[in-house]
């Protein structure tokens, strides 16, 4: 029912004024609905491309496409999910071919990402020797990156971006059951990885420096 608006021909150029008013409205709505998600999209693009320049290009292409096809966005549904889907498709179609092999992690980049971040172990002086608190952001990042893409992807979409299973299923074009089992298996792998990092610190020995 909402889709019936798509066929407004606007044949004559005498309609220029109303058209640009229409465009103005579209722009406002676009900025309100879509542009507000730019940080999430940028972070998603960073995780996919592992490269700030590529991430920028990817986000830009995504928004360009999203704006063109904004009429086909179903009002009332999750715009962020819609944008993520476009970004993912764009990535598959134009980026992935040229990017580095999957699983190859750019450690310099990660160091750049995290070099400004202070050691968070200091301010978590909780007496409980919980190894989770000893982990550094870059370790968690590396652990996540070490997962096979299909697992990493669903964890990212679920835990970081907060999408529902239904939205994720739609994005990765798999049934919800698949999303469930990927999350389960991915988290299992992830925890093993995190625990191995934590062991490095001897989290159980409770050493005082």
């Amino acid at each position: 029912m909402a889709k019936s608006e798509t066929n407004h021909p606007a044949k004559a150029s005498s309609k220029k004024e109303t058209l640009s008013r229409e465009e103005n409205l579209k722009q406002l709505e676009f900025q309100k609905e879509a542009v507000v998600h730019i940080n999430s999209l940028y972070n998603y693009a960073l995780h996919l491309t592992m490269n700030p320049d590529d991430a920028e290009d990817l986000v830009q292409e995504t928004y360009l496409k999203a704006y063109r096809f904004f009429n086909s966005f179903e009002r009332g549904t999750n715009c962020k999910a819609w944008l993520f889907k476009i970004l993912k498709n764009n990535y598959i179609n134009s980026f992935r071919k040229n990017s580095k092999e999957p699983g190859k992690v750019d450690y310099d980049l990660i160091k750049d990402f995290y070099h400004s971040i202070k050691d968070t172990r200091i301010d978590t002086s909780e007496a409980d020797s919980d190894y989770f608190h000893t982990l550094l952001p870059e370790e968690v990042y590396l652990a996540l990156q070490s997962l096979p893409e299909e697992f990493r992807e669903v964890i990212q979409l679920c835990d970081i971006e907060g999408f529902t299973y239904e939205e994720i299923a739609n994005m990765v074009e798999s049934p919800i059951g698949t999303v469930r089992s990927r999350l389960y298996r991915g988290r299992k792998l992830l925890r093993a990885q995190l625990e191995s990092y934590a062991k490095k610190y001897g989290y159980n020995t409770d050493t005082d420096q």
Partner: protein
Amino acid sequence: MNCNKTRVLMSVAVDGELTVKEEQLFLLHLSECEMCRVEYEEAKKTKLIIREKIVRFNAPASLVTMIMQLSDVDAKKAEGTLSL
């Protein structure tokens, strides 16, 4: 429900995506099984740690500006050509 089945559902439970029926069975098992209760707490922590420790970056200001202009440029173009 046994421990294995419960472990699989744990991942779903931390996301709040269990069906009503699953949730009943899940909670019932937790109430009877200490090991799974501990495990469930760990599962919740794993989700939390991803959320808390993965650093979020702001999109560069230049990119934001560009996106705002993008819709302007596209609008102007559309006025002239009206083609997709």
